[in-house]
């Protein structure tokens, strides 16, 4: 599309706003699709009736108490994972970083599997997300402490990666240890949790998740311009006036908190945090003022679509959402990568 010169000069931010608007519409459309389809017979037509208030009560319940909260959870988790992936990529200056690279998900899994294996999860369902969240926060603090002790004087991102990978390996060992001692039923639920699923959606979970995500997401989005400088290297960013140590710490805490909250609510859903920011970057470049919010919205749309597929593809059996994101996300990503390389 060739715009007149005046519009193009009208500036970068106008172009960004336009693209973000388009993505928001796409996310909204994905939400409508997600709410309209499901294993039960309730379809798109019933959605409109329910919205206007004269649908039959059971359809209304399915839509408002099952599908809508689930779509909201998918939107929040998808957005949070993509935004935190993008933030880690900027912090670690590595396009291959993803939300789980620093061991936060491993810590969450230790917490969740611990709750399942001890039988606590079966008694008190709320202990599962609580355990996962506590494990994720513990992992986040542990990795930060290791990195700070190993390299005093500022946060060295190379040491941070090493600490994260090492901590993640340790958490994996702990998980396998607990699983080897678990009975068959706990084993099954633990594995299902680790594959990632949005079936735990509910308005209360969603509200809690949104309350945790909002400040962390705002903090990450506010770092867009320092991230742009950071992409040229920490030394360059410092010379250009960025408060590098503070930016790195806030980025780490915000991204980790988003991952912790998302994982506690939905388990370990892979690939969203890697694929979505990368796809946005291939399409629209790496200005973080666009990249961060666009990643959030694209992550929202992506997980909404993936979860819809997870629910209806093998209906009545529901597939783990994390499996669908990988199965559909990876080929899509490969196509993007090849086309991007040719350009």
């Amino acid at each position: 599309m060739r715009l007149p010169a005046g519009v193009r000069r009208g500036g970068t931010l106008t172009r960004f706003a336009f693209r973000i608007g388009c993505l928001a519409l796409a996310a909204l459309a994905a939400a409508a699709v997600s709410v309209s389809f499901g294993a039960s017979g309730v379809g798109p037509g019933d959605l409109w009736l329910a919205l206007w208030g004269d649908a039959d009560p059971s359809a209304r319940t399915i839509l408002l108490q099952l599908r809508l909260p689930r779509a909201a959870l998918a939107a929040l988790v998808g957005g949070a994972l993509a935004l935190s992936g993008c933030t880690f990529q900027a912090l670690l200056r590595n396009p291959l970083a993803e939300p789980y690279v620093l061991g936060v998900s491993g810590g969450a899994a230790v917490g969740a599997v611990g709750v399942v294996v001890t039988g606590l999860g079966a008694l008190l369902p709320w202990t599962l997300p609580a355990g996962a969240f506590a494990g994720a926060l513990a992992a986040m603090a542990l990795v930060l402490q290791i990195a700070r002790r190993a390299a005093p004087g500022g946060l060295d991102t190379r040491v941070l990666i090493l600490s994260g990978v090492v901590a993640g390996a340790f958490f994996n060992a702990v998980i396998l240890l607990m699983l080897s001692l678990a009975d068959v039923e706990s084993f099954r639920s633990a594995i299902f949790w680790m594959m990632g699923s949005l079936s735990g959606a509910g308005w209360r979970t969603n509200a809690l998740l949104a309350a945790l995500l909002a400040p962390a997401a705002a903090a990450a989005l506010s770092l867009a311009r320092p991230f742009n400088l950071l992409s040229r290297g920490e030394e360059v960013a410092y010379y250009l006036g960025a408060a590098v140590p503070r930016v790195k710490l806030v980025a780490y805490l915000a991204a980790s908190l988003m991952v912790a909250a998302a994982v506690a609510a939905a388990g370990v859903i892979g690939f969203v945090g890697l694929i979505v920011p990368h796809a946005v970057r291939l399409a629209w470049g790496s200005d973080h003022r666009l990249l961060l919010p666009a990643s959030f919205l694209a992550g929202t749309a992506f997980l909404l679509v993936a979860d819809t597929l997870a629910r209806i593809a093998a209906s009545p059996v529901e597939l783990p959402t994390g499996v669908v994101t990988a199965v559909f996300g990876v080929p899509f990503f490969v196509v993007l990568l090849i086309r991007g390389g040719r350009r």
Partner: protein
Amino acid sequence: MRGISASVRPGRLLAVVGPNGAGKTTLLKLLAGSLRPQEGEVRLDERLLDDFADRRRARALAVVPQSESSPFPVTVRETVTMGRYAHLGPWERGGSRDRAVVGRALERCAAASFAGRRLDELSGGELQRVRIARALAQEAPVLLLDEPAAGLDLRYRMELFHLLRELRADGLAVLVVTHDLNLAARFADRLLFLDRGRVRARGAPAEVLSREMLEDVYEWPLRLVAHPGPGSDTGAPQTIPLRRDAARGPRS
């Protein structure tokens, strides 16, 4: 490094020279604030550099480090616009003045013709000009450059030093770390010659560069000849290293 004092004044071009490992880059990083001295202090307009807030410092002092790389593709104009960061509030968007400053910096460094291209598509000389343009967009009165001419061909080197000379004429205080004794001798007002972490000599190029001192520092036979001119280069001491076997020849 020990016992070093160095200062740059507005409208002056100081070249820091010396062999590998002499501490040139370390000195630049100390002056730029990215390294903290264990002892001693760095002052900018009488104020301690440590007391400057990050943005304030970047408005007073622009630095072009030796090299940089990015994992993500960015365009030339985006890169130069990064120089405006310190002039904008956290949520402030750049205005027409910022765009004008970026445009002028691009013109100045002869980079305007490829402003839309991506950095990873540029040649070494083009990239270096973009990085200097970004530093100019900071509009800082002090400019520090670390080996800006490294890897550039003859023409780019000359253009670069001409540019530094023009910036000096505009009233900037320019400090350049370089290996190139000959260009330093022609373009710099003063040289600071470092050797193994200490100041070996300082002053006007003709005073600093002597055959005895250079042969001692580099441990290599050489001759100094006067630049044949024409113009203001005439007489500038130019260093010519000899072949190893020439060392046995007559020393006069």
